[in-house]
């Protein structure tokens, strides 16, 4: 009973003497504002983790894989026998460029040069690459690998058009061309920018 009276009197003192009513409302408001600020900070941290810039990884696109598959069958204007229309296709040039890079087509260009020109003509034009376009750059890497061997992923051919800078998205695809005893992996990577048609 005595304790209760003491508590009531201290409450009375707190409410009316130590902390006047106007001050109390102020502290309540400050508390509320503090809670809101804490929640906002937590939300901002969550949002940052949701939308933070992701490390530049290339997403595989089925469309780009089909483009490479179609390129493999594309008939180039390189032939090794004069007056015979035995034109090499994209896949043949990839194999020749790996195994016999000094070989010349009948028009005097090396197989790797024809491969380079054909990629520019077929893939470069299809993707519409340039500063004014959405696709800012693309690169093609051809690597040789033998399953289980230590000599894996040796780049045998590489070409690039445009510059890989400020890419908002990177996408690409790959295609496998057999080359006994291993295989050649043709990988296409495209850099998509923010603006452009």
């Amino acid at each position: 009973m005595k304790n209760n009276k003491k508590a009531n009197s201290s409450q009375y003192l707190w409410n009316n003497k130590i902390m006047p009513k106007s001050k109390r409302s102020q502290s309540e408001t400050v508390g509320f504002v503090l809670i809101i600020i804490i929640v906002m900070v937590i939300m901002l941290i969550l949002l940052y983790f949701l939308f933070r810039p992701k490390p530049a990884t290339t997403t595989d696109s089925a469309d780009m894989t089909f483009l490479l598959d179609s390129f493999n069958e594309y008939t180039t204007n390189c032939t090794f026998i004069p007056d015979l229309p035995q034109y090499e296709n994209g896949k043949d040039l990839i194999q020749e460029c790996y195994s016999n890079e000094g070989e010349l087509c009948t028009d005097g260009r090396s197989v790797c040069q024809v491969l380079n020109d054909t990629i520019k003509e077929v893939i470069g034009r299809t993707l519409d690459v340039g500063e004014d376009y959405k696709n800012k750059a693309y690169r093609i890497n051809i690597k040789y690998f033998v399953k289980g061997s230590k000599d894996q992923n040796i780049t045998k051919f590489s070409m690039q058009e445009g510059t890989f800078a400020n890419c908002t998205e990177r996408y690409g695809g790959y295609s496998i061309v057999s080359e006994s005893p291993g295989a050649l992996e043709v990988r296409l990577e495209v850099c998509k920018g923010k603006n452009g048609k």
Partner: protein
Amino acid sequence: MKKNKRSQVRMQEMAFMLVGVILFFVFVGLFGVTILFNMLKSSAQQTADNNALTAIKNLASSPEFYCATSKTNCIDGDKAMALSNDLNYTKFYSFSRLEIIKSIAFDKNRADMIKCTMANYPNCEEIVIFDKHARYEKSVTSYVALCRIESENGYSYQKCELAKLEAATEDKDIKSPKSK
């Protein structure tokens, strides 16, 4: 102010505060759910696009289109020409339009493309297999190798070029006219 009145006011304050806090968290929750839903939606869209592409790839491997030689992702241009405007095929496929566009016409509008006929083939740009002339369309495209038999110096050989196989379906949701 009497003591019970003061308590009522305090309870009211507390109630308002609770309602405010609950509303605040509800909005925060809704915001989070919307973001998650949008992310899920874009991922579902990507999966749907990839499925559509795979469906088109299967179309390119169907006996009606595939090249006789063992080429991957290849369409026989001569077969496609034979099938073009064959009315029986409009019922065979569930698409509203099916066509092949050669790479030389990739940057052209559909209206400006030179349509392939028996008279101008292969010097043309667009092989229309069929077109049901749907008002609103949603289309998917896939790159293919379009091959045909050519002859040079008395020898025949298979010439392949890059093309796009475009399959469109009637879209009742989108209220915009079909694009190029």
